[in-house]
């Protein structure tokens, strides 16, 4: 199924824009001088799934709210579907679909009523609205629950309905702000499938996430945002490739970071060392070949470590390299990888 179905063509036909989204020096400062977004530049090509990866409070939602015309930028400029967010808010709103992090559902209405109302707000009424609502309920697998009030829905069902409500008018650009946060793994996979279907239907998807795997699996390109600044931007593959060849992770346990790092200085093929509170990540040309020398050096220095492992770089390593720390919520995952 695609967005352009038999019942609804896009409310506004998509125009040919090289960039679905373009931002230049976009900044938002809140009261009290809090700089949520600091002069970011980004471009999202039409038809791509673009990921915006970052920890809580990095500036993802503020960026989305500015691009959706919900929040004016303090400075800088941005265009969505070729239109200026500061000047053409009304036109942009006709072309975009939005599912914000906070699920925007009216608990008093049924799923079907909510979608039919949403259709009405986009000028789709009567039989077309009923058909479009039924079609979207089917798309997100909620036909059986369509006539129940949304307050009885599970978290996953609410997310899917929220997504459906963002699609009623077949938007050109779809903003999904952490669409899988709080979902169980199965619901997350379902949501990924739905995002792929939507993108296959022609919509550009701008997706914020704090899940590395999600960014890796879903996105054609992504930007990493931290503390209001974009610190890396490229395809997931390219970002990982730029990391070097292998990552050797050393769980330090009781070992001292400085002493361990000093013992490994000058290691052959070592490109970079990133230290964390309880681990060291060594970026080396050939991980397997380096292990023996690493063990020898640690042994010579009388340093006892917990575990040593070799892996290909992940987006977590990209994040670590770009920010000097692991992505919030991914610490445990990183630790597990180190111990494996």
């Amino acid at each position, binding site marked *: 199924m695609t967005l352009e179905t038999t019942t609804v063509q896009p*409310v506004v036909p998509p125009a040919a824009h090289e960039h679905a989204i373009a931002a230049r020096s976009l900044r938002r400062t809140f009261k009290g001088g809090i700089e949520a977004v600091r002069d970011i530049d980004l471009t999202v090509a039409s038809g791509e799934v673009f990921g915006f990866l970052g920890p809580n409070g990095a500036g993802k939602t503020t960026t989305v*709210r500015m691009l959706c015309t*919900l929040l*004016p930028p303090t400075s800088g400029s941005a265009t969505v579907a070729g239109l200026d967010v500061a000047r053409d808010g009304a036109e942009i*709103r006709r072309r975009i679909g939005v599912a914000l992090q906070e699920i*925007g559902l009216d608990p008093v209405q049924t799923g079907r*009523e909510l979608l039919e*109302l949403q259709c009405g707000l986009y000028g789709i009424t009567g039989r077309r609205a009923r058909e479009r609502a039924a079609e979207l309920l089917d798309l997100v697998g909620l036909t059986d629950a369509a006539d129940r009030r949304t307050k009885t829905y599970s978290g996953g069902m609410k997310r899917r309905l929220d997504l459906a409500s963002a699609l009623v008018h077949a938007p050109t650009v779809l903003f999904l702000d952490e669409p899988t946060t709080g979902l169980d793994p199965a619901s997350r996979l379902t949501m990924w499938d739905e995002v792929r279907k939507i993108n296959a239907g022609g919509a550009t998807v701008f997706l914020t996430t704090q899940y590395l795997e999600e960014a890796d699996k879903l996105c054609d390109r992504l930007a990493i945002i931290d503390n209001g600044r974009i610190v890396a931007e490229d395809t997931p593959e390219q970002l990982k490739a730029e990391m070097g060849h292998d990552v050797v992770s050393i769980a330090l346990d009781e070992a001292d970071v400085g002493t361990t790092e000093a013992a490994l200085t000058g290691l052959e093929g070592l490109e970079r060392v990133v230290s964390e509170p309880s681990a060291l990540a060594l970026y080396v040309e050939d991980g397997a070949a380096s292990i023996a020398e690493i063990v020898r050096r640690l042994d010579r220095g009388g340093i006892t470590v917990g575990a040593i492992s070799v892996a290909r770089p992940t987006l977590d390593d990209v994040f670590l390299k770009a920010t000097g720390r692991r992505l919030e919520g991914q610490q445990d995952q990183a630790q597990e990888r180190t111990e494996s």
Partner: protein
Amino acid sequence: MTEVLLLGRRAVREIARYPEATIPTLFIPLFFLVVNIGQVSKTFPSSTPFLKGQGYVAFQLPVSLMFAVATATSGLALVTEIDLGYFDKLLVAPIRRSSIIFGRLAADLVRGIATSTAVLLVGIALGARVQSGVPGALLIVVLSALFGVAYAGFGILVALRTRNVQATQSSFLLFFPLLFLTPNFVPFNRLSAVMETLARINPVSYVIVGLRSLVIDGWDAGKIGVCIGVIAAMGAILTMLSLRTIATYDR
């Protein structure tokens, strides 16, 4: 206009599905009506000049009508939507922001008509006679409902400005001084000098006096005109402030 109708229909559906939000707004004014009549009907028998041959219920009825229609329900519904994120969903839709307000007010009109009709019928059952007849009774219902719409603007304004449920809920408390600093128990000339001054500068007094005139006097163009004027002015000011606030919301 379509947007207002769609959002109004949704708000009416909300009222119908949450009767527990409307029933107390009906129960309390009826309770006060019965209790007040019980307490003072011997003090003010039908021979009392200002009652013009009617029981005290006729004098109290407009106060209960005001009590029934003046609620913070719309403000509360709006602030809950802000809390839940549905408000953002509406803001990002290609609709005029004003339609969010007018949709709520349309539902207030429907609720006001329903509750004021119920209170009026109870008043009539308790012995009140509407001297202006059926057309007067219809006008009482319409004016009461419109007062409810006008007052709802205050709750909406507080909801938009504070984005806080407790603050919006508390905004209803403002109505108590507005309702009680009026000739609600006795006419202006029976109030103490201070109370009379306060009541005369309180616009709500003139709404009560206008509605009361339809019950007790019949058709008094002067009192009805002032009543309509106060409701219109109050509605215009509060709605305009709400519209201005929503237009600049997060902008």
